[in-house]
């Protein structure tokens, strides 16, 4: 074996006596062994173990307090993030779905149970997708036509009152102070404050500023506005113009005190402002002018 390896074996105390003798025969390795053996007898100064430990403990206690002030582990941080994510998911889920239309814009869409809603201009409908299974409930501001599929109770909530049905086609009008419900099929129940009105097919009812009017018969099978027309029966010009404001993006000015109170019966189109104004003004002996986006209506006699 290589003498260098034998030397290491000796230093590692794994060499046999024979190997040791062999190594001693070489002068160089013999002197190595003398040095190695002499070094064995060296000792270091003693280590003052207790003093050092005391010093460590003195410095340590100060740090212990700091440790204890830091109880937020990674685990709690993960938990906090999970709570946040889950919480915002729940919050998002609880938000209502909302569909709205601007002026001169109509929208047809389906509710989760395939009930159809036709939203008239300048209106908004909102409902909760997740609670739909438990309660078919929509909130309405404006005017909309509902074709409700058969099922359990269907509610339309407005700021004036609530309309409940089982499966039918009906129109709800809820603008300003006027609340009108027209039933085209089935049976509709209207709740205003404490009173409940049952509305059979082919009738409509108007509630003006909380005053419940009489039931009226309707002949059409759909509301006119669904066919891009508005139908008025003995309605004040003020109300007609309010409706035109929803369908046409113009500002309206009325000149003459008596015009607003005049009553109008007939249909007005949503597609052409000139025809619409003609239909309103001719029977009532009124004239109109269109200047950019401003429409002025005044008495013929005043000219």
């Amino acid at each position, binding site marked *: 074996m290589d003498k*260098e390896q034998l*030397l*290491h074996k000796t*230093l*590692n*105390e794994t060499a046999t006596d024979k190997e040791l003798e062999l190594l001693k025969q070489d002068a*160089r390795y013999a*002197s*190595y062994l*003398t*040095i*190695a053996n*002499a*070094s*064995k*007898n*060296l*000792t*270091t*100064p*003693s*280590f*003052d*173990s207790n*003093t*050092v*430990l005391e*010093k*460590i403990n003195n*410095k*340590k206690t100060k*740090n212990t307090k700091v*440790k204890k002030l830091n109880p937020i582990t990674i685990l709690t941080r993960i938990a906090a993030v999970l709570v946040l994510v889950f919480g915002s998911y729940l919050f998002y889920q609880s938000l209502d779905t909302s569909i709205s239309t601007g002026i001169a814009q109509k929208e047809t869409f389906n509710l989760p149970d395939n009930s159809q809603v036709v939203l008239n201009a300048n209106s908004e409908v909102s409902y909760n997708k997740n609670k739909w299974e438990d309660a078919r409930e929509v909130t309405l501001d404006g005017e909309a036509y509902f074709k409700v599929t058969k099922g359990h109770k269907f509610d339309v909530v407005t700021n004036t009152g609530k309309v409940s049905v089982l499966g039918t086609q009906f129109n709800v009008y809820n603008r300003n102070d006027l609340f009108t419900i027209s039933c085209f099929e089935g049976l509709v129940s209207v709740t205003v404050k404490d009173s409940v009105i049952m509305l059979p097919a082919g009738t409509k009812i108007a509630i003006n500023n909380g005053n419940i009017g009489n039931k009226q018969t309707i002949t059409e099978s759909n509301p006119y506005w669904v066919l891009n027309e508005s139908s008025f029966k003995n309605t004040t010009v003020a109300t007609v113009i309010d409706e035109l404001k929803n369908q046409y993006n113009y500002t309206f000015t009325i000149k003459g005190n008596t015009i607003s109170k005049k009553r109008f019966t007939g249909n007005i189109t949503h597609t052409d402002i000139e025809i619409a104004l003609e239909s309103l003004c001719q029977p009532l002996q009124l004239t109109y002018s269109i200047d950019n986006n401003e429409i002025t209506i005044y008495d013929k006699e005043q000219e």
Partner: protein
Amino acid sequence: MKDTKNVCEENTFNSIYKQYGEAIWRFIYYKCGDKAQAEDLVQDAFIKLWNNCAKVPFEKAKSYLYTITNNAFLNEVAHKKVVLKYQKSKNDSVNIQSPEYVLQEKQFQEKLENAIADLTEAQRTAFLLNRIEGKKYREIAEILNISVKAVEKRMSQALAALREKIENI
């Protein structure tokens, strides 16, 4: 289930100190040759261990201590000239030797100590860990984080250097 000891516990920490404190002190003393400095380094190392007790598993405490003590040594004192002091060697055989021999022995011992002080830090640490502590090459390799082959090389170099310094033996 495995019973894992937590370094953050006072008892465990103290037992680690009792087990390794002195060995680490000697290890660093071989390197720097300064008793007080070695004490300071050991103290710092154990305080660091305590501060990081949550991050250091019990099994890793020993190598952690060796590593940070060594790093601290390299940062602070590696550049200083090292003079090691040894306690008077307890040589049993001295009494029955002739006065000439005793003198020779004394001279030899002096030369040896000076020669050891002149070794490189790497050679000296390996050499003294083996000679004074009686540590096997494998243990030294583990402490110094080098291979057994590298320990062999350092030992050979140390012995050759010592032999050259101490003439006429």
